[in-house]
């Protein structure tokens, strides 16, 4: 599968696809998209890179094992869930929202952080599964 075309294309594709996945994540609250899809797209981006450049190279790009993304994402989601208890007196999972919109992203709220957590967990889980399998294959 390591063709020249794919190889040269993938070095550009990885950042573009990752950017695209973040885009999908951020627009999720208003338009189709969200953490699940975004995470899957990001995972596919890394898998594509691994196919063309080899697993070791992709891993060196990542710098750390993707498995660490799972607890990180879970923690972010968890803290966005309990943040209303910490910052205000509202019950668990109440949405907190910033007063003013931020350019490009729009309104920022705890739901966005929750989605970010989902995004990270999905990337972590998918990559852990696929990397583990291709290493032992």
């Amino acid at each position, binding site marked *: 599968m390591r063709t020249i075309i794919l190889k040269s294309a993938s070095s550009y594709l990885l950042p573009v696809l990752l950017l695209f996945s973040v885009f999908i994540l951020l627009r999720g609250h208003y338009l*189709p998209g969200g953490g699940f899809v975004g995470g899957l797209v990001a995972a596919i981006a890394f898998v594509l890179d691994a196919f063309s450049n080899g697993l070791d190279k992709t891993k060196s790009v990542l710098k750390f094992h993707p498995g660490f993304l799972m607890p990180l994402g879970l923690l972010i989601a968890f803290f966005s869930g309990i943040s209303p208890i910490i910052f205000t007196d509202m019950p668990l999972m109440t949405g907190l929202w910033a007063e003013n919109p931020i350019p490009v992203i729009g309104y920022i709220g705890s739901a966005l952080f929750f989605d970010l957590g989902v995004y990270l967990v999905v990337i972590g889980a998918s990559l852990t599964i696929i990397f583990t399998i291709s290493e032992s294959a």
Partner: protein
Amino acid sequence: MEIILAIITGVLYASGVYMIMRRSMVKLILGIILLGNGVNLLIFLLGRITKGEPPIIDSAEKVLEGVYADPVPQALILTAIVISFGLQAFAIILVKRTYKVLKTDDLDQLNTTDEDS
């Protein structure tokens, strides 16, 4: 329209059940995938079918009005799809591992719990 999808759900269920009753473990996994798709379609159908009206509020509006597709089954299926990915991955690896250790993918050979069989 619904009737065709209902028949297809039936076909998915039938083929899924048939596949998981085979003796080969690979077929077992394929059967699970088909059954999972059947269940997704079933949930989707029970929310009724709407063409071209996704449950997204128009940028100018604040409340969704008029005809729209039911968002509840969609949310259910979305999680189901991701979970079934995890399930399939785990099942595939389990089969691979079993084959490596026991040198068989015949489910009939796995009918005892004894260590040395």
